[in-house]
């Protein structure tokens, strides 16, 4: 374990000139070894999921990425760019190449290709599973580099060690969690490092690298807008506080020009790189920095008097032009309905926006604001070290340390809006905590050393200049005690609490792949609930390859990836109307639902039902979102119809609309006959802890074709259309348009 104690070895350099270089070399080797160990730690702490469960892709979005990677590895890059996926969003389809951030898939695909060209037969799945742990090791090294640029290698090592095991980051990068964030955090931290490096050196080489790193970030994650807003903010801050330098110019101007050009190469970004408001700040600051550069240049060649005259002239003329330009810009931006911002960005600026206007964004749990305990759960003791780190950054305030302060402040705000963005906060918190810890050690050990030296030198000559410089020299006793305390605290708190907490979090809280559930039975045995894969496997082997499967959008990615069947909606929630159609079908009575599904060529309907084993995140618990989203587009679905006195219930008190909707019927069909419920009474729902409201009903338009072992996934087939019998009243079943035509003639509209 690379603990902070060993990390301080880096910057201690007060000795004779001869031993200094040796010690530097020695320190370099130690730092290198520690870094390697940190990398190993970061990698291995994320393997709990593989050890406890298996080497498998987790959750929902990773399955899509995995499927894309499979396609990429099988068909090559050009087919990937042109890939039109007809397995999803039936009948619309989705252009995959133009709508995904390709960074992650290209990274994993490249790794796979390299490894296989060396004749090391790793499967695509294995590569995908281990991409996230590998990149979290890279991310800790990037954090080391960044913090080293800000506060020296000691702080860097501490920050790297902390980032390697911060729970917030672990939660998004355990083995198998093959999502964009896995590589994006590395790209984010590395881009920041290169920016700081350019800022400190003024080298165009690093500026170019910075643009490339930014390009990689744009490829990887939509969160790149954080970079392209944070860096301009910092540049603006530097200019306002009078810290403009040519280094700042080198660090910023090439990034904007090259970065924007490169970003627009990524199909999913394209012209958004210049058109949307997320990128607006960078261009504004780009103009400002040129104005400022020009001003500094003119100031340099003119005499002060002439300069004053020039300033008044330019400012009065420029102000008028500026006003006009800004007015036009505001008019242009205001003319678009979302003010040029995407829904998710608007949610960040106005946290209440999503819940008001976009229920789909609001329905995702990771888009909710976090609770206070989740801060402690996710970044643990770092939450208390961060303020100390901020203070340390002010002593002295440099260009780079001001950047870190700006980073933490903005990311704290963003994490407060969406729990998902806690991930952006994690590296900032680690960097600042690393700085705090390392500075504390620095100050304390230095004061111990200085006291000793002063005691020796006290007769010879007092060194007033030195003591003036070292304001932070504490009394010996206090500092010794403080060091001891810090070491003790570090040992007990950081090592035990943080590591135990992190390891616990890594092992227990974040490693569950969510497609496999386990529970410990009373005799200590492990019971595995593998119902999801059972259902997907059944679908893939026992249905026709072109059958369409309808389910709520949560299971879309998994169905296409594991069952290889066409779905109506999936986790890429780009078409609200389509999702609302499925929501409407699920909340309609059986016949209407059958009509909607039939008009969409659906053959099977898949519902997730946890009532038998007590799996809480099932479709009945998500059902109100289906009603809300469906009702948002089709107004005949009204949320109050499903609530009894504002309460959501499924027992005998539930409303008839609720008891007759498709979701209720498909979930509870024949569940009241389950024999294992002898103690609970018939038809007992273990999640809601009530007896269900309607029992012994039959399905008229659907038939059960498969139910998994623990009843968690139930698959129904749409019954075929009944033959028309001459003479009988024709039933309006063929399509939606037919039914609405009938409506005109005075028949009952099935939609109402």
């Amino acid at each position, binding site marked *: 374990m690379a603990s902070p104690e060993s990390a301080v070895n880096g910057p201690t350099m007060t000795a004779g000139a001869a031993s200094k270089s040796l010690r530097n070399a020695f320190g370099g080797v130690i730092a290198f070894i520690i870094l390697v160990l940190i990398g190993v730690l970061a990698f291995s702490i994320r393997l709990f999921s593989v050890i406890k469960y298996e080497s498998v892709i987790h959750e929902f979005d990773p399955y899509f990425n995995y499927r894309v990677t499979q396609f990429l590895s099988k068909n090559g890059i050009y087919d990937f760019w042109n890939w039109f996926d007809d397995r999803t969003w039936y009948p619309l389809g989705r252009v995959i190449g133009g709508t995904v951030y390709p960074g992650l898939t290209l990274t994993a695909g490249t790794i796979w290709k390299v490894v296989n060209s060396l*004749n090391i037969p790793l499967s695509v799945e294995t590569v995908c599973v281990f991409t996230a742990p590998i990149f979290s090791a890279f991310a800790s090294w990037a954090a080391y580099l960044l913090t080293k640029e800000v506060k020296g290698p000691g702080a860097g090592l501490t920050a790297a060690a902390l980032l390697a095991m911060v729970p917030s980051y672990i939660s998004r990068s355990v083995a198998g969690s093959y999502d964009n964030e896995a590589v994006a955090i590395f790209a984010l931290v590395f881009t920041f490092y290169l920016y700081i490096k350019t800022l400190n050196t003024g080298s165009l080489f690093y500026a170019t690298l910075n643009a490339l790193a930014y390009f990689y970030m744009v490829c990887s994650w939509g969160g790149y807008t954080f970079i392209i807003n944070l860096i301009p903010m910092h540049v603006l801050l530097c200019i306002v506080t009078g810290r403009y330098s040519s280094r700042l110019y080198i660090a910023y101007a090439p990034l904007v020009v090259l970065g924007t050009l490169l970003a627009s190469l990524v199909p999913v970004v394209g012209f958004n790189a210049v058109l949307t408001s997320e990128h607006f700040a960078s261009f504004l600051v780009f103009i400002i920095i040129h104005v400022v550069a020009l001003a500094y240049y003119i100031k340099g060649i003119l005499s002060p008097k002439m300069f004053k005259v020039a300033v008044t002239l330019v400012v009065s003329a420029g102000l008028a032009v500026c006003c006009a330009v800004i007015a036009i810009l505001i008019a242009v931006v205001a003319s678009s309905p979302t003010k040029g911002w995407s829904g998710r960005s608007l949610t960040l600026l106005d946290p209440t926006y999503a819940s008001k206007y976009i229920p789909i964004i609001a329905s995702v749990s990771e888009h909710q604001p976090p609770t206070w305990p989740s801060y402690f759960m996710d970044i643990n003791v770092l939450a208390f070290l961060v303020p100390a780190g901020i203070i340390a950054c002010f002593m002295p305030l440099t260009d780079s340390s001001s950047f870190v302060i700006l980073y933490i402040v903005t990311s704290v705000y963003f994490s407060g809006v969406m729990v998902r963005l806690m991930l952006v906060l994690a590296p900032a918190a680690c960097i600042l905590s690393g700085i705090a810890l390392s500075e504390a050690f620095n100050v304390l050990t230095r004061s111990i050393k200085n006291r000793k030296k002063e005691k020796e030198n006290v007769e010879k000559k007092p060194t007033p200049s030195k003591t003036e410089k070292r304001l932070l020299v504490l009394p010996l006793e206090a500092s010794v005690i403080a060091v001891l305390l810090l070491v003790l605290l570090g040992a007990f708190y950081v090592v035990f609490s943080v590591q135990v907490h992190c390891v616990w979090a890594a092992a227990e809280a974040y490693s569950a792949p969510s497609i496999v559930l386990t529970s410990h039975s009373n005799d200590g045995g492990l019971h*595995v609930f*593998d119902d999801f894969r059972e259902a997907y*496997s059944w679908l893939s082997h*026992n249905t026709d390859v072109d059958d369409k499967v309808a389910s709520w959008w949560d299971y879309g990615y998994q169905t296409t990836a594991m069952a290889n069947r066409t779905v109506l909606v999936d986790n890429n929630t780009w078409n609200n109307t389509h999702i609302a159609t499925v929501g409407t079908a699920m909340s309609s009575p059986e016949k209407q639902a059958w009509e909607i599904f039939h008009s969409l060529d659906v053959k099977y309907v898949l519902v997730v039902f946890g009532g038998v084993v007590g799996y809480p995140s099932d479709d009945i618990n998500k059902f109100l979102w289906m009603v809300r989203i469906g009702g948002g587009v089709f107004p005949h679905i009204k949320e109050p119809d499903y609530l009894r006195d504002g309460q959501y219930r499924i027992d005998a008190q539930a409303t008839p609309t609720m008891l007759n909707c498709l979701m209720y019927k498909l979930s509870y069909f024949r569940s009241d*006959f389950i024999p294992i419920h002898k103690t609970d009474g018939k038809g007992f729902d273990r999640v809601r802890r009530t007896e269900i409201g309607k029992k012994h009903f039959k399905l008229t338009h659907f038939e*059960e074709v498969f*139910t*998994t072992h623990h009843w968690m996934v139930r698959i129904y087939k749409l019954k075929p259309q009944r033959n028309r019998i001459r003479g009988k009243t024709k039933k309006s079943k063929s399509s939606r348009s037919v039914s609405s035509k009938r409506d005109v003639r005075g028949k009952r509209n099935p939609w109402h």
Partner: protein
Amino acid sequence: MEASLRAQRTAALLIFAFLSLLAVSSSAAQEIQILNAERRIDLSSQIAIVFLTLKVENTGKAAASEVLLSFPPTEADHLAEVKAQAASGKKRKKTHVPLDVKPTDVPDAPKGAKCFRIALLNPLSPGETSTIEVLYMLTHSMEPFPAEISQSEPQLVYYRDSAYILSPYRIKQQTTFIKTPSTNVLSFSRVEPTNRAGMELKYGPYEDRPAYSFSPVLVHFENNNPFAVVEELVREVEISHWGNLQITEHYTLAHGGAKLKGVFSRVDYQSRPGASGVSSFKNLLARLPARVHSVYYRDEIGNISSSRLRTDSRKSELEIEPRYPLFGGWKSTFVIGYGLPLEDFLFESTDGKRYLNFTFGCPLSGTVVDKLTVKVVLPEGSKDPSAVVPFPVEQHMETKYSYLDVVGRPVLVLEKKNVVPEHNTLFQVYYSFNPVFMLAEPLMLVSTVFFLFAACVAYLHIDVSIRKR
């Protein structure tokens, strides 16, 4: 007009030729007659196992060195295995000597019939008799009827055969016993005398039937045994001279019985296991060699957790459950992999070659494999592979690239269709291998690391900057 005339003439010629041939060969075949034939057909699993005991007499003048067997065309395609043995001695002291069975063409056989030639150990001199026991197995010979059943119905199947044994010889006396898995026999054809007692049907005894007598019979009965059919099985046996034999088996499993019609209700399946889905099966038993290690059982979407491994010193048994119970017509795919210690299976032959001694068939008990491919991956650098298999298989060579291979590993591919558990016999693959090749990959790795360090050292000591500082 002329053309049709010519065609007629050719046809007439052909018929004449055929008839004359028939006359010649039938006279040859008539030299043997079967005094007594007893056939026992066991239909209690999905494989029809038939024991045929023939008492053969040479009525000709010359010694007969071979005896012919023939099968009707309906059975010919389903024939998985034919074995014959000569029995001699009385009941207790009976000795069995396996006989060589080879497919052959008999010109006068009815169209589509398939014939086998049993080579006798000692030629049968005129007037002598001998007892031959034949064992043959038929797969996919039971046809589910009705072809689609619901979950609560039992599975009913048709079995078609002939009341008389199809034989190129006159049979003096013959009896056929058909054993059904249950007493529930819905119907059966009667070719008098026909008796039914419990689970056994008896056709015969029939006296003095001429050659190629045929009288179709149909038995309709209940058979709820799992019709577990492995549609395709690819077994890959990879030899590593570092001491491991890695076996990977890719299965495509299907339920070959009556298809499930309509709904599958989990309630019924779970609450009434005896009455619901009786023909479905949910677990299978794989018999693996002893000392098996690192067993895994998974499919393309991950590990399948429902399996149990029992090992003892003589054998290992892996009980596997597919992800879902298999009903008629349902399919499933999975992979079983395991490692074995090499010294149990790899030996050195007297001529310095090495040979692998391994079982050929499918380790899942009671299954029929429609297509079995055994791939023996030999170590990189091995030469002249050749296989010795006790039954005919198709062979070809492939090359496989595995961990850090440069030239690739030779792969000997053996393919066989219609495999039954009876084929779980040993086969041998001989090859020559120079142990020096074992060091190729470690040396490669070592040299790579060495060159990496050398490059680092060189980089640190060479000043590559253009401008001198």
